[in-house]
């Protein structure tokens, strides 16, 4: 099947690994990720102030494009997912934001949140199915792996509806599917602090160390994530306590599609 895909700025540059491996794996699993046309950067952080409109428009454009191209929009970067999903919720439920955004965009038909925003992990779970992945694994990743969710995929849970915000299981299920042993540690849904890295470099250091120490204490050999920023932060500020990789890299390894 084909699915409209929003890569986002970082996946084009620093996080090319994430993008490449994701596409390869999807293909191997029978899903064709079709990059949407003329996408613009989502802004990387959801603007919460109630009067923000312009900052949400790139997300709405992408959503509207996907509406007319299969009705689903696939995301991979946690930040893009967070921004697009929350913006979509605004378009669905906040009449004021919806009408103002549509006034700006002047689409042929107003966009009202019709598109389903799907994260790559959700796609793996619901579209492909972890059982299918399990069967497709040629190279079981036989290691103890800690899932790092961070904030963006989970919160606010009312909107993200990704998983139980305090006790998520989707990445653990994913790890099991590719033959690994998931390590549950309490800081897997705690913020790594990366957003403030440019203003306050100490905070992200402390937070990322805490995350990795917690994972290591519970027996993890490595940590996986879906977020380029988390990856950067945990790698640079985490003092090499544990190796940190994209979850798609492990998937590629397991499926044997490594480039």
């Amino acid at each position, binding site marked *: 099947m084909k699915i409209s895909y929003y890569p986002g700025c970082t996946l084009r540059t620093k996080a090319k690994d994430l993008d490449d491996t994701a596409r390869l794996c999807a293909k191997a699993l029978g899903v064709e990720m079709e990059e949407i046309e003329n996408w613009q950067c989502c802004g990387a952080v959801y603007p919460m102030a109630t009067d923000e409109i312009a900052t949400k428009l790139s997300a709405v454009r992408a959503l509207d494009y996907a509406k007319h191209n299969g009705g689903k929009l696939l995301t991979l970067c946690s930040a893009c997912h967070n921004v697009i999903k929350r913006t979509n919720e605004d378009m669905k439920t906040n009449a004021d934001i919806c009408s103002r955004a549509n006034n700006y965009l002047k689409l042929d038909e107003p966009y009202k949140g019709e598109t389903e925003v799907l994260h790559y992990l959700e796609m793996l779970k619901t579209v492909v199915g972890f059982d299918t992945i399990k069967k497709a694994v040629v190279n079981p990743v036989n290691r103890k792996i800690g899932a790092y969710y961070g904030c963006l995929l989970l919160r606010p849970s*009312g909107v993200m509806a990704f998983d*139980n*915000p*305090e*006790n998520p299981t989707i990445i653990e299920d994913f790890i099991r599917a590719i033959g690994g042993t998931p390590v*549950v540690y*309490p*800081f897997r849904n705690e913020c790594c602090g990366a957003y403030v890295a440019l203003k306050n470099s100490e905070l992200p250091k402390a937070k990322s160390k805490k995350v990795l120490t*917690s994972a290591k*204490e519970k027996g993890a050999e490595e940590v996986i994530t879906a977020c380029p920023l988390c990856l950067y932060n945990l790698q640079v500020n985490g003092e090499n306590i544990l190796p940190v990789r994209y979850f798609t890299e492990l998937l590629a390894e397991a499926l044997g599609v490594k480039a």
Partner: protein
Amino acid sequence: MQRIGVFICWCGSNISATVDVVKVAEVIKNEPGVVYSANYQYMCSENGQQLIKQAIKEHNLTGVVIGSCSPRMHEATFRKAAEEAGLNPYMVEVANIREHCSWIHKDMDEATEKALILVRTAIAKVKLNAPLTAGESPVIKRALVIGGGIAGIQAALDIADAGFEVDIVEKNATIGGRMAQLDKTFPTLDCSACILTPKMVDCAQHEKIDILSYSEVEEVKGFVGNFSVKIRRKARYVDETKCTGCKVCMDKCPSKKGLNTFNMGLNTRPAIHIPFAQAIPNVAVIDPEQCIKLKTGKCGICQKFCGVGAIDYEQKDSFIERQYGAIVVATGFKPIELDAFNEYGYNDNKDVITSLELERLMNAAGPTNGVLLRPSDGEHPKVITFIQCVGSRDTSGCGKPYCSKICCMYTAKHAMLIREKYPDTEVHVFYIDVRTPGKNYDEFFRRAVEQYGVDYIKGMVGKVYNENGKLMVQGSNLIDNEQVTIESDLVVLAAAIEPEPSVRKVATLLTASIDTNNFLTESHAKLRPVESPTAGVYLAGVCQGPKDIPETVSQASACAAKVIGLLVKDKLKTNPCVATPDESMCNGCSQCANVCAYGAITYVDKEFRLGGGKTEIRRVASVNPAVCQGCGACTVTCPSGAMDLKGFSSKQIMSEVEAICKK
């Protein structure tokens, strides 16, 4: 010729401040049919009622309209006054010029104008009123108590002591309820079992009380004074009349791995078991999910060892049907599920427990014989942290919006008991507010702080996590404006309480109303707190709202008083405002019976004269006035308009509509 008297109440200044009551009374004098009009400071007072009675007699009134507060408040008062003066009480109508007028409007002219319309509307209606007489129905002198916890036990004992038969229907294998699981009770710290079990024994021995344990209400028919209730007696696979409670079967049973629900699943019990030592009835029950014989057909050891032959694997659910005059609902509560509160790690850590689990861990008859040991490793916890308001006062959708009321006190109790028994233990309590209204309650809480040195922290916990074998409790200390992390060995959550889920079914069966939190609704929050709006149904204990033991017992006794007051009557007056069909117009089409929630409508074949000496037999509706509750659903479904409602007839409502719309 109609002779209507109108009485406008000032309600002190409540009405007269915004409605020109004198003017209303004056203007109304000129209404057709009105022969008397007066105004008075307090119509509901003795003098006010006297004024009405006098006017009825002196002016020979055929109808009375009172412009006053809501009819929900004083309609009954005024009807009684009219009756005493010789006027049919249903010839009285109330125009609500207080709640629906003076209290909500500020402009005097506007309010006066509206009051006039409301009074005219009531006049229009009263002109079409017909004298109604309440019917009578007999009272069955037996009460049903649903739920055998402390509320049900107390209500049953009080009713039985007054000489009436009472049945207690308890869904579990024993009566005793939540109170039987508690260790000590606040604020006196006496042992729960010591004060409860004698009452349980009293119930069992009372000649007027019949305990139907392991039973559920299946169907309720009838109405106040005359309920007919079908009760399911669930198969316990043990003959209640034969079992002596010797517990040999429990020893011999090979399937011993069932979770002990009485101990909140903290230890195990055999498939055949008696829930706890003081159970009433002291009779074993087999868990069919766990019993090898019932699951596979092989085993039968308990039967072999039972000296009295009480075991019966073939037992089936049976049903009994009994008649009652009154029903007390005392279905109790349970702590909420904590799945939505994963930040406290309840599901992930054995040493994060609920307060009710702690009760069992501290109870001498509990899984640890009263020695406080952590569930994970059986070690004695040195640092214990309590978290209050887990799921209470939560409007985010995860918990309950209300205050569970009992947690502040039991947490103080727990903290105090732990510090008393194990002085080497550090105890912290995270709280939002400590709420201790009640006799000797705040003193009790302060004792925990001042005498026992319990560390109360004003703030809430954000996260509980496991680090290096310790439970890290991270929360805020708002007084010092800091974030603290307490390394704890045991974390106790004061989980919110919610009505026992089965109450929804009970409420539906009884047509008793229930609120959004599944608490049964009382008839009046202040003045009729133990009555359900459904006549003959009374409420005791937490099924009506969160409350502690003293309050529950008070409410249960109050219920009993109400029930006794009902059962001593030989006959009850029934609501005369019931549906009534005009047989000459009835099609007999059954549409009305289809919408009647009470089964009050049946059909009879009746002979009608057609003229010319001819007759025909037609099927027509017939309403049982004792069963009809007077909702009027049938009247609208009747296409010919043959069905009408006394007291709220189509013509009466139409005349009200006309009076309001008249420009």
